[in-house]
């Protein structure tokens, strides 16, 4: 999985996600966690290119949410496509992640 990560202030920006499924969720989680060096506290994930998200992908996002919570930070999901946002809302994940649309 080729993620694009970039640090801006205390936030890790993550891009390059086409899908987040059982096949790549653990890899995604581990790569992002490894990039979350101190003192980063927030994660912004560009979801604009993500076409598919399943429950394993949600699990990886929740795991990252727990990581940033311990640093008093948040996970922001940027510009998810309508079907992905519907899944986030159906599973009530919009309550723990900040969903931002440009």
């Amino acid at each position, binding site marked *: 999985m080729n993620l694009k990560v970039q640090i801006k202030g205390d936030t890790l920006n993550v891009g390059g996600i086409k899908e987040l499924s*059982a096949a790549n969720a653990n890899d995604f989680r581990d790569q992002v966690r490894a990039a979350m060096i101190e003192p980063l506290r927030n994660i912004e994930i560009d979801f604009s290119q993500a076409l598919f998200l399943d429950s394993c992908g949600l699990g990886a996002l929740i795991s990252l949410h727990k990581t940033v919570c311990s640093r008093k930070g948040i996970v922001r999901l940027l510009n998810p496509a309508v079907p992905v946002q519907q899944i986030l809302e159906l599973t009530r994940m919009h309550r723990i992640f900040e969903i931002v649309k440009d």
Partner: protein
Amino acid sequence: MSESPGQSSRCSGLRLSLACDLAEVRPATLAVRGFLTEHKVSEQDVAACELAMAEACNNAISYAAESRRRDPIKVEVMCHPAVVELRIFDHTSGFCWPDELALPDPENESGRGLFLIQALTGNAEYFRGESGNILVMRRPRTPQQAHFQAAPAPNPEELSRRLFENEQVITDLAEELSSCYESLSAIFRYGAEQGKPPELEDFSRRLLGDLLRITAADWFVLRLADPQESRLTVFTASEPGLLLDALEIGVAFRTFRSVEVEATLTRRDVWFDQPEALLSTDPLGALKPGSIGLVHPFYVGDSLVGTLAVGKSRLRTPFTAAKINVVHAFADFLAIQIVNARLQEERVNTLLVARDLEIAQNIQRSLLLGTLPQLPQLELAGYCESARQVGGDFYDVIKLSDSTLLLVIADVMGKGIPAAMFAVILRSLLRALPELTSRPSELLARTNQLLFDELSKVDMFITAQLVFVDARSRRLVAASAGHCPMLIATPGQVRTLSPEGMPLGILPDTPFTDETAALDPRCRVLLYTDGLTEARSPSGELFGAERLAAWLKQTAATSCTAAELKDQLAEELAKFQANMALNDDQTFLIMA
């Protein structure tokens, strides 16, 4: 993965076979997507089937029996005119399909697969068998946009459904657009008010009133935290006059559940959309039973500013992500306004205190005489330096006749405005009792009687020394109310004069005594406050009474005037303290 399409008169089918490997799932779901799209299944149904199938396949692979992991997972997709049917054949030990499927705790990283299958298909059955199990999922099809040329004209029912679907989409889009527009315009409108005098409560109520309208909520409760972040107090609410006790954050969490306190402790939104989430013992639950909504804790930096609870009737649609963003945006905007208003208030208070001190300082300066009355052959000079802008030390010289006057030096316990005020009162009283000025002990006794009630009410007292000087008879009469001894120096010797007496304000009726001393032609008399003897050098050494007495003694051998001696002593003190800030006022009167 292998696939084989099938066709019958009433339905089209697709069979897939994939290895027991999670990496096989996504290509398989994409194959199903292609198949369904080809058969004009709506995008909404395709996405739902794609995800439901992925969840089912993930489970089939993750829980496959070890002995059967070489066997492929089979998938069958049938596209009927009114329904899409998906069948997943697994080799797991099987499980009982739950009667009710609920979402797990939001913090759980797993346990959402079956919920998604049920929610996306609406009809799922699980059949267990000896050699394998089958999950059958049926998703009713929503009408697909017809191709103008090939498709037959839709019937009225389909048209009606399509119209409803489109209306729903337009309504959702319009709602989101409206939310964004109204949020922005509200924030700009309120932002423009920042130049006006802040009425924070009114401002907050109006802002949050707009929030209710934009998010279609029924009520809000805004609590603010104290600076210690230990207490949440209701600042404003949608219903004026709402009676809700303050919440002690630590106490409330130990004794009863409060969603507002929980939000501050977890630093996250707390939702109450289940009946058990908002208990009747929760202050918010008692106030708004049957509500759904959330509590959002808001911060500026790491500092908790407060909590915003927003709710609506359980019968209404839950808040969407767009609405939550609006709640967050409003709360964060409000947090900045609240912190700004508090800073502004602190700045105004600081300015007011500074102004009060300036006024008090002006009053105190006006008490110190610009030019001291003088007597024949006896010159006077005075010095007063306050440790703060306004101190409690003062001196006064009251001329009684051409050859007599009364010297006054006093130290009001404490500093600042209260001490300065008592200094003013004492000075006025002493000047208002001219019949007693030649008898200092009686003047002190009378002053004590008059001041005792006021001083004892505020637990303050005053030390003072009064000296009646008669230049013609070359003698003085001194009385003291617990004040520092007076120093009288003549060439070769220095003596102290310390008449007995309690400070003013300690006892209502206390005696004072007069002591008399002769004034030699070359004597120097020094009245001072303890700020002189207690002055410290940078190394912490005290200036002390002995150093002061020694200084005065050596001056008796000189022919310096009182004004010169004043300057010399002030210089001595400054040199000793080496520009250190004063701990106490320093005041003295010198007669030479």
